[in-house]
């Protein structure tokens, strides 16, 4: 198995001078290729902070984050942007897409940033839209799509860059149950068919149940790290 993420002893303190908040406290997290991992925990437990650290959006005060053999905590701001472009796929809770671009252009954009050849982009975009089941919505602007459809396109965009893993912070938080199920179906399918690694945070019990591994954070520390069943028994998840 290939290690994709190796976060070692990471710590993040907000407002160290005034009112220090230890958002992530000495966390070790190790992800292998092909994992489908949920990050859960009560509100304020540090899920977003941890994902930001792993995704190279924020720097830890302590510890290292090694992705694909590179310690990203040591990269300069500019190098880090480039690293994210080539190695990490992002799906945010909402407003993932540029409103003025069509669905297809939103997906193409990331490959254009990677300087992928036009012919290759065309082929890839078509297959990505087939994978997310939105071939008929390629030329539609985000505003004309449902929240669920927008999130599926965000997943397609994340996948388009051929990242090491896809990171999603509460991707279903703004979706109804059916759309959430649908999004999870697609993510699970991509995980299975392409062996794409996913790590996502969620409050949704139904989503947690679809994960193959569940990491629970409480007060910035890893509380449990196991299969979904034991988590369920361990602590009551608030929606």
């Amino acid at each position: 198995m290939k290690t994709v993420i190796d976060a070692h002893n990471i710590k993040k303190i907000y407002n160290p001078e005034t009112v220090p908040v230890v958002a992530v406290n000495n966390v070790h997290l190790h992800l292998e290729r092909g994992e489908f991992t949920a990050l859960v925990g009560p509100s304020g437990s540090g899920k977003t902070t941890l994902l930001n650290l792993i995704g190279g959006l924020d720097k830890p005060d302590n510890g290292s984050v090694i992705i694909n053999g590179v310690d990203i905590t040591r990269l300069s701001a500019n190098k880090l942007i480039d690293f994210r472009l080539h190695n990490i796929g992002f799906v945010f809770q909402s407003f993932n897409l540029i409103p003025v671009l069509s669905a297809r252009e939103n997906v193409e954009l990331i490959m254009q940033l990677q300087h992928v050849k036009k012919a290759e982009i065309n082929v890839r975009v078509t297959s990505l839209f087939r994978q997310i089941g939105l071939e008929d919505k390629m030329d539609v602007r985000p505003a004309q799509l449902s929240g669920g459809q927008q999130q599926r396109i965000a997943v397609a965009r994340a996948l388009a860059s051929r990242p090491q893993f896809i990171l999603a912070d509460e991707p279903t938080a703004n979706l109804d149950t059916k759309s959430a199920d649908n999004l999870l179906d697609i993510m699970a399918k991509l995980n299975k068919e392409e062996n794409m690694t996913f790590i996502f945070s969620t409050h949704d019990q139904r989503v947690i149940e679809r994960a193959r591994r569940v990491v629970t954070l409480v007060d910035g520390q890893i509380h449990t790290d196991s299969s979904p069943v034991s988590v369920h028994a361990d602590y009551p998840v608030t929606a």
Partner: protein
Amino acid sequence: MWFRLAWKNLWRNKHRTSITTAAIFFAVILSIAASSLQDGVFDNFIKNMVSYYTGYIQIHQQGYWDHQVLDNGMLRNEQYETRIRGQKNITAMAPRIESYALASFKDLTKGCMVVGIHPEEENKITGLQKKVIAGDYFDHNGGNTVILSEGLAERFSLQVKDTIYLISQGYHGALAAGKYLIRGFVSFGSPELNDQLLFMPLKTAQEFYAAPDLVTSYVLGLKFDKTLESTVSNLRQISGDTYEVMSWKELLPDVDQHIKMDKGSMYIILGILYLLICFGIFGTMLMMMVERRYEVGMLVAIGMKKGILAMLFLTESIFTVIIGSVTGLLCSIPLVYYLKEHPIRIGGEMAETYKRFNFEPVFPASTDPSIFITQGLIVLGIGLVLSLYPVITVFKIDPVKAMKK
């Protein structure tokens, strides 16, 4: 790629784009109109003032201005005159001989200023012919005839065709005396001139003063007041120490002072206008950055380099600024030309004053191309400098903070 994105972004919020473009559009039009009116009004004022009597530039024998007597006059020098006339921007060169005399009619005697003029050249500069209110202007030989200013004529209760006697001291102390047929009357707005001027043809005056070929000044007309300084310095070079070359600013220091003060307050108004323009443009840019902050954060998060994003915003703003400036510039051209052809008319008391001085009571607009260029560039410059705001914001953005709700 970002060019296409920039283009699409311009259409994302049509209102905002059109507000920014319109702000710049009107800014250009306003600043061009304001400064073309300002320049037009001052140019016109200067033209009025100098064509009243003084001319744009005068040349005298060195020392004449401080001590204005015939003995400080100069002999006409054809070679020199030809050189001066040949200078660019000089429209006319009128020789004058000026001195004081006593005029008498019946049992009245009064001091007056006798001015010998070259009828055609003088007319090119002061439009004297238009000021004739009775009788005629000089024809080319003129003869022993004079034209009196209205006030002087009234003092003596003179009529055209009456004869007036003049007596004075001529060149080098000679006695000057003669009788002259009155050809016509001219009216000047200013009492100072209206009560004492008496014109005669140059030759006649030279004979009267026993000073053949002598003149006290050359009065020059200029095409553009803008070229005043350069023309004066050219003329000074040509004239050397023999002659003194004086611009209207030295001849009419009060007028110059007055214009300087008025211009100062116009610049303050223009400054306020620029400030308003700044706020207008900056406001829309601020709005735009607030609206797009999340999106910029998201794009940086997924891996778009800030340099590319900055280019994107710069392209957008520059495009908006240029469209606004260019259309503003294009629309201001017909507007200013219209204002030149149909100048704003002044009403009320001010108009009366203008008319009394034989000035047309109008605020003309200047169509000097440099106004369009300068004002267009200033507004364009303001727009471009403000376009740096989004760029700076992009470079300072932190994706995590920007995406926080």
